[in-house]
């Protein structure tokens, strides 16, 4: 039961990263793939109508975490205090810049909104990347399950660590590249005209850059948490995740080569999902590793709520999930097709 909930919570986060990751990616590339005001509105329209639906996965993730792993939430959220608030503020700025940019047809206004959009997307990718790797690296949890963490200490990865160190910074760079590649792949699928052509070029270059970075951070992870790969090799889900990654890479390459954009974008989603899933499986059951002493680590088992709580949640969660998927399938069919700079067939601007 607890393992299943660990999987569900991971799944929610993975879906969020896949869905909103493309929006972050599109946001980061916004100023380079779109050069005219019309093209910029085109990019916004490509991610526009469902961004809040994507963000609900993050809210749902947080709510579910409170319900099923309340002790984890109670340790992690105050510990990540400032980083979390920066993320929340960036999410506010990002959402507002998408929504209000089109309301006033004025160059200065739209330029400003575009800047806020790009800036917050970058910061979000960096912060999410760093925060995710803090989970792998671990945080200075004490025996009561509490920790506080400054933004940075001495940039080392053991003992009294900060949010940013050499490891999390390099992962943040990797996250930026990865999500930008993901976003470019999405824009290639969703747009036409010059934005499409530039997105295709960026997608190819960015994916090529992602590959060596991935190897580098994998090696770094080995150095930071030497015990994890050995532990992970016994977990079949870890292998499954890696298998998905390998297949996705193959599909992605062929999709990009032959210009089959739906295939490339699906592969890009599965690639992200596979990476995160194998990561989640690799650290299971530890959810938050203590850099002080392993005994303080928070695991799925010592942070879960009562059996009845989990049981009741497993009754309503699938219902909610089925409904959410139904709405999504219904509504995203209305938004099918490419967005052009001249003709917004989403009715979005």
């Amino acid at each position, binding site marked *: 039961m607890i393992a299943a909930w660990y999987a569900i919570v991971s799944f929610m986060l993975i879906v969020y990263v896949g869905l909103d990751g493309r929006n972050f990616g599109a946001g980061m590339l916004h100023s380079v793939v779109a050069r005219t005001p019309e093209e910029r509105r085109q990019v916004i329209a490509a991610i526009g109508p469902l961004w809040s639906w994507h963000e609900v996965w993050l809210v749902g993730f947080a709510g*579910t975490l409170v319900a099923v792993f309340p002790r984890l939430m109670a340790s992690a959220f105050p510990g990540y205090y400032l980083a979390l608030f920066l993320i929340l503020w960036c999410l506010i700025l990002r959402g507002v810049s998408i929504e209000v940019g089109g309301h006033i047809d004025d160059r200065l206004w739209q330029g400003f909104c575009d800047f806020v959009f790009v800036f917050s997307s970058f910061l979000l990718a960096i912060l999410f990347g760093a925060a995710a790797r803090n989970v792998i690296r671990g945080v200075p949890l004490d025996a009561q399950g509490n920790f506080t963490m400054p933004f940075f200490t001495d940039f080392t990865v053991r003992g009294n660590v900060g949010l940013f160190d050499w490891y999390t910074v390099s992962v943040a760079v990797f996250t930026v590249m990865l999500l930008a590649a993901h976003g470019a792949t999405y824009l290639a699928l969703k747009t036409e005209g010059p934005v499409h052509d530039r997105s295709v070029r960026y997608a190819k270059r960015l994916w090529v850059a992602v590959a060596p970075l991935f190897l580098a951070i994998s090696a770094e992870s080995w150095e930071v948490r030497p015990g994890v790969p050995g532990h992970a090799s016994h977990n079949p889900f870890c292998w499954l995740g890696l298998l998905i990654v390998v297949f996705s890479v193959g599909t992605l390459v062929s999709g990009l080569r032959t210009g089959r954009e739906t295939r490339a974008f699906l592969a890009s989603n599965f690639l992200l999902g596979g990476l995160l899933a194998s990561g989640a499986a690799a650290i299971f059951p530890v959810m938050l590793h203590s850099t002080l002493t392993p005994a303080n680590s928070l695991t799925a088992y010592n942070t879960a709520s009562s059996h009845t709580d989990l049981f009741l949640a497993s009754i309503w969660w699938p219902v909610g999930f089925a409904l959410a998927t139904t709405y999504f399938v219904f509504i995203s069919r209305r938004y099918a097709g490419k967005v052009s700079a001249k003709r917004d067939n989403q009715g979005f601007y």
Partner: protein
Amino acid sequence: MNSNLADPAFWSRFQFGFTLVYHYLFPQLTMGLAWFLVYWKWRGLRTGDEKYNRAVRFWAKIFGLNFAVGVVTGIPMEFQFGTNWAAFSRYAGGVIGQTLAMESMFAFFLESAFVGALIWGEKQLGPRNHFLAAIGVALGSWISGFFILVTNAFMQHPAGYRLEADGLLGITSLSAYLFNPWALVQFAHNQMGALVTGSFFITSVGALYALRKLHHTQARLYLRTGTLVGMVAAVLVAFPTGDQQAKMVGRHQPVTLAAMEGKFAGGPMAGVALVGQPNVATRRLENPLEVPGALSFLAYGTFQSYVHGLDEYPSDTWPDNIELLYYSFHLMITLGTIFIALMAYAGFLNWRGRLESSPWFLWLLMLAFPFPYIANTLGWMTAELGRQPWLIYGLFRTRDGYSKVVSSGDTIFTLIGFIGLYFVLGLLFLYLVGREIGHGPGGEGTSGPEQVSAETGVGPGGERSA
């Protein structure tokens, strides 16, 4: 008693209160407007009268702006449970987390899937699906309100839980938790309050256009629908829902009722103070002007009923800011009474066909729209200040609930950030909504959907064509 500025719990409370009060300015309009959109969309489908569709188009734009600010200010709330109230989340997460997660799964996904379609997708979806989108958004917003009120009701009057072996709360009965009688009453009361906000807002815009002699048909529609719904909702928010809510407080939180009324000495024939200032130090209500017996009757059904006074309870179970609680409650009641009078008179004028030709009254209606926001906020202040000193009534104190590892420095820093960000957001919102209202619904044949979009495909929401 933690109004001490050096106390980290105070700053966490202040921050949560600030972000929550600000956030709730938006959902109350969302929940209030949503059913107007559904109604007009339905009338449009039934009658084929273009004025209804035009009204939906116009209000959907305002709805969209309001919804967006509601979403972005709501997301931090979900996280603040963990960041600033970690001890509370650890203690009660297994219970309250259920509804927080259900809100996302059952309400937010529904709302956010269809809101874009409601605002921008009229052409894409066709009238019938567009109507369904309006229903989806309206249902989603009310379901979300329900789950949040269940969460709050658990904090007011816990139900369906038990204390687990590890000392934390766990759920025993989902139905007892979800259908907590407190939640049902509070939900009804709160939703009527949201409808009052929505109808006053619509009425106010109608009054503005009527005074300016603009958009004649639309102004008439807003005034008629707005005042009719406003009258019904203003009555329902007081009776039976508000009345039941107060009885619930009297039954389960008698000390809170005493504080709300500034009653220090208990007794039968307890009166309701129309005016008066509570003086907690001397334990009396100064300069009172009372209706004798009214409180006994309202709270317990007879004039002879005994109403408990604060003196009967140890002072460490008193709400920690009795003065603010007293004024919040009394101002809410005063405003609620004014709303009924205002809307009843509007209904009378409407019946006589004189509403649009009574400029002074239109002025009143136009200027009245901020007051339901104030009344809703005061209602929530009554609920939350009245619950003190408990975070979960009778089980868990507020001073035990905040995150011990988060310093006042961190909380004040993020509070300042929120104040700055929300100030800018508020200005932006007012400007953009003001702009939409300035443009108006188009109408009287000046700018319908036919004017735009033929070759561009730009929907009627396209401000570029405005």
